[in-house]
């Protein structure tokens, strides 16, 4: 049999590996900084670009898309070539992909602190960057599909199925969730509003977890774990079952981020039941990982790589058990908006993604540099530090979340809230915040250790840029679908495979999104709800720029403990002009949906200048710059026009005198402040923000349902 000689491209894998560690360290450092800011708000040094609301998105984006993202690409490029027995389709695309992705990361690191954000979680980047992401992502897809098509191996290995599903689904998610209309070069409004935007966002957000943090990593697990353990994969049948079940069911589960909100009940219920159904398919992956180690457990003890992988897969199992539990409405009623969610996310991100990443890197680097790991001892130390770090991170936050939630809900025997002062419930859990930052610090130390160890490893070896390989060429044999072998048939057909997985992932999304977009009864209209005034709209954009929504929710859930604390619960019809929705996902501070009219303008002025003036001990950062910065009113016209094009009923031509209304309203607020002894400039940003805050939730304060 004749064989063909070719070589694998290790260069791009090396680049991605370096980027993984580098951005990982940066992302985790930013995480540590915001964790400390939660008990030491001064740590932002009084610089607006470093406040919690602005760099929290930087942290999440860096860890998800830079740290995990680069590992995905590195791991895919390494394993895909080898299981396909082919070099990457195009070296140019590989390099384009690598440098394009790094450019996106740098752009994120610049624009997010500057306050250019859409306000949608994990999709904060503004539309020019979104476009770039689309181009680079497609180049990755083209390169991958190209490689699969010119493979020498007849069948596609299970890892490749996961890569294909990742590519098609992330493409769909990114495109649908990023449909936005530009106002200016770095500002846009999403076409969806309120409930629709919320559903779209969490359909995206949840499946970013599914198809960016889970499926590609399962693919990596299917390659690197059997390689490192030198054992056959436990069950091929199980791979098929859990792969298809996973990608089909995952898509439906998004609404579990919106339980007890203004989302229609039927969508919430779908979110709950599909999350529960997700348990088994997720565990299928864990099983296939752990049981592959049957007969290799003795090696786990003295092999740090396997140790990392075992903890990773176990953490995956734990968080995919916890996830469905958190989707049960009675559990969610306690966990939602608290630190429990943060703990859950980090068991996944640090445990599953973090630990698997390190396992893969410790295996990959010695291979590509043709040497041994520099220090097994250091790797072991890293393992223990990271594991301890995860425990230290998660346990205090579970405790914090449950404690705070119970305090929110506690009534006295007379039926009055026991802890009416929200801040009291925050101060109670500050010790937990301190502990968790220690956990984060340990994990960060771990990644620095790994960087040292990996650099030393590379130094002592010599890099194989192009790894020689040989294989028999692909022979196209005619075959028919046979009973029991349908999947074998499909594994030979990448295009059909990709199409089928597209159909499978589309179903859930369409069933949930389309009725919410189109069926009117899902969002009953409320006549008294009016569009924002120009000043309020500007204030709202300041709220988005400062990332107030990272700490404040704007959604009162239908619980007595919340309606007593905040006021009437939120109705779907109240959000129809909210492009984007700002419901938030975490209450570090109190809900703000009914804050309008609660305090005086003066209170807000002093509170924003320094929250501790009005709420002693508050951990909310001061925003003194809002008092001096001048509101940019040149954008008003464009904003009103874009809003109208999205269906907000501003009268025709209103954009031309919107700024007059804006000034009138601003003068009124400035006058009121002056009467109360504060001479404030009516063109300061704070005035717009106060106008927005005072408007919040007041449309239906008359009690209309």
């Amino acid at each position, binding site marked *: 049999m004749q064989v063909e000689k070719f070589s694998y491209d290790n260069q791009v894998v090396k680049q991605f590996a370096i980027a993984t560690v580098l951005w990982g360290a940066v992302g985790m450092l930013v995480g540590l900084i915001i964790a400390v800011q939660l008990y030491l708000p001064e740590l932002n040094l009084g610089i607006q670009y470093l406040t919690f609301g602005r760099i929290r998105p930087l942290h999440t984006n860096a860890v998800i898309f830079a740290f995990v993202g680069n590992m995905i690409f590195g791991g895919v490029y390494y*394993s895909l070539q*080898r*299981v396909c*027995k082919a070099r990457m389709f195009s070296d140019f695309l590989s390099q384009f992909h690598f440098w394009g992705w790094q450019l996106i990361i740098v752009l994120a690191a610049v624009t997010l602190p500057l306050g250019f954000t859409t306000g949608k979680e994990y999709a904060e980047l503004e539309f020019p960057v979104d476009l770039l992401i689309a181009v680079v992502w497609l180049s990755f897809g083209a390169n991958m599909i190209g490689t699969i098509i010119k493979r020498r191996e007849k*069948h596609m*290995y*299970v890892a490749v199925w996961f890569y294909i599903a990742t590519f098609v689904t992330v493409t769909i998610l990114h495109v649908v969730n990023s449909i936005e209309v530009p106002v200016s070069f770095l500002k846009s409004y999403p076409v969806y509003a309120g409930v629709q935007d919320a559903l779209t966002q969490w359909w995206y957000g949840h499946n970013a977890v599914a198809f960016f943090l889970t499926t590609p990593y399962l693919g990596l697990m299917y*390659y690197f774990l059997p*390689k490192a353990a030198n054992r*056959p*994969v*436990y*069950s*091929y*049948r*199980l791979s098929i079952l859990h792969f298809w*079940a996973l990608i089909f069911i995952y898509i439906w589960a998004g609404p579990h981020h919106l339980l*007890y909100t203004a989302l229609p*009940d*039927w969508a*919430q*219920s779908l979110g709950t*039941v*599909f999350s*529960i*159904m997700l*348990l*088994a*398919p997720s*565990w*299928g992956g864990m*099983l296939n990982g752990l*049981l592959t180690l049957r007969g290799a457990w003795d090696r786990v003890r003295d092999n740090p790589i396997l140790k990392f992988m075992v903890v990773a897969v176990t953490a995956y199992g734990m968080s995919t058990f916890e996830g469905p539990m958190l989707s049960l409405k009675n559990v969610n009623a306690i966990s939602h908006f608290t630190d429990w969610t943060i703990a859950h996310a980090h068991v996944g991100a640090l445990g599953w993604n973090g630990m698997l990443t390190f396992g893969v890197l410790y295996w990959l680097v010695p291979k590509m540099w043709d040497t041994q790991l520099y220090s097994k001892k250091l790797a072991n130390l890293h393992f223990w530090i990271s594991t*301890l770090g995860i425990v230290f991170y998660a*346990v205090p936050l579970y*405790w914090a979340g449950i*404690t705070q939630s*119970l305090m929110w809900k*506690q009534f006295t025997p*007379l*039926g*009055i*809230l026991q802890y*009416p*002062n929200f801040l009291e419930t925050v101060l*109670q859990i500050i*010790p937990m915040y301190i502990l968790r930052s220690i956990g984060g610090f340990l994990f960060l130390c771990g990644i620095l250790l790994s960087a040292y160890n990996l650099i030393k490893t590379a130094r002592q070896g010599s890099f194989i840029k192009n790894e020689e390989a040989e294989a028999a060429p692909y022979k196209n044999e005619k075959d028919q679908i046979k009973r029991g072998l349908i999947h074998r048939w499909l594994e030979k057909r990448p295009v059909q495979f990709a199409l089928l997985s597209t159909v499978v992932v589309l179903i859930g999304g369409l069933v949930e999104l389309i009725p919410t977009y189109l069926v009117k009864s899902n969002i009953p209209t409320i006549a008294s709800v009016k569009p924002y005034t120009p000043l309020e709209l500007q204030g709202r954009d300041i709220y988005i720029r400062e990332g107030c929504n990272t700490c404040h929710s704007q959604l009162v859930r*239908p*619980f*007595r403990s919340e*309606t*007593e*604390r905040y006021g009437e619960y939120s109705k779907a019809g109240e959000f129809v002009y909210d492009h984007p929705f700002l419901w938030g996902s975490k209450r570090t501070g109190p809900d703000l949906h009914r804050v309008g*009219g*609660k*305090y005086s*303008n003066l*209170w807000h002025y002093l509170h924003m200048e320094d929250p501790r*003036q009005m709420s002693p001990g508050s951990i909310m950062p001061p925003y003194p710059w809002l008092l001096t910065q001048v509101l940019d009113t040149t954008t008003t016209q464009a904003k009103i026009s874009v809003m109208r094009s999205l269906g907000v009923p501003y009268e025709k031509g209103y954009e031309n005198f919107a700024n007059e209304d804006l000034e009138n309203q601003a003068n009124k607020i400035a006058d009121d402040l002056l009467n*109360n002894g504060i001479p404030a400039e009516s063109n300061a940003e704070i005035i717009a923000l106060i106008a927005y805050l005072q408007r919040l939730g007041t449309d239906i304060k008359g009690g209309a349902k």
Partner: protein
Amino acid sequence: MKSNKILLMIFSLIFFFFEQTNLLAANEETLDKVMKTMLVVTLVVIAFVLWLAVVYSEKNDSEGKTFKAPLAAFKKYLTRTTPIEKEQEILLHHDYDGIQELDNRIPPWFSILFYGTIIWGAIYLLNYHVFDDGQVQTKEYNLEVHQAALEREFLIKTGAFLNEETVTALSDAAVLSEGKDIFIKNCASCHGQSGEGLVGPNLTDDFWIHGGGVKNIFKTIKYGVPQKGMISWQTQLDPKKMQAAASFILSLYGTNPPNGKQPEGEKWKE
């Protein structure tokens, strides 16, 4: 590795310390629940230890076959895994870059879980959205509010729940000091540490914007004056606390604190 264990122990101790402080914040009801759960967990652990003791004390049966047999059979039934020695029989004839695949049967417990959750999901949807009207959360909320209203009615009848009609000014030291605590915590940021007035008006003089006297003060505290920035406290402070705060405020009369804000409102005569 040993040192790691010691470290872990130390850290768990620290956790326990912090947990303790949190438990103190919890009220009796939650404590009760915690105690019950702990009791159940303890019983389960004791049962498990006893079972272990029995298994391993079986001298003539060093592998514990007698006691473990049912367990082993159950495990076998649930996993149906091919033993590792026979793994060659289910090894598939292909490899990908050296990775081979076994074709183990899908474990029955996995199938039970998989199909079980699907059935559960179907029942859930039928229950709430087909056999019921699907108004899940509003119903839940209305029930909760209705019950609370009944309880409140009862408390008002028994006199436990004061209102602006029935409230009286109190002057015993314990109440005033409670009132002071409440004042410092909730009111001082607007009215000043000694009631001298800041964002809100001076509370130590003769002049009252919304009426003086315990009934009016109680009323102002309870409902607030939202258009002027005084918030309503009725959902935050129970009536006894509002009474204590009002009594404390009355006790500030004539204290003439430094930096007193100009009088506002009308001179109040009882």
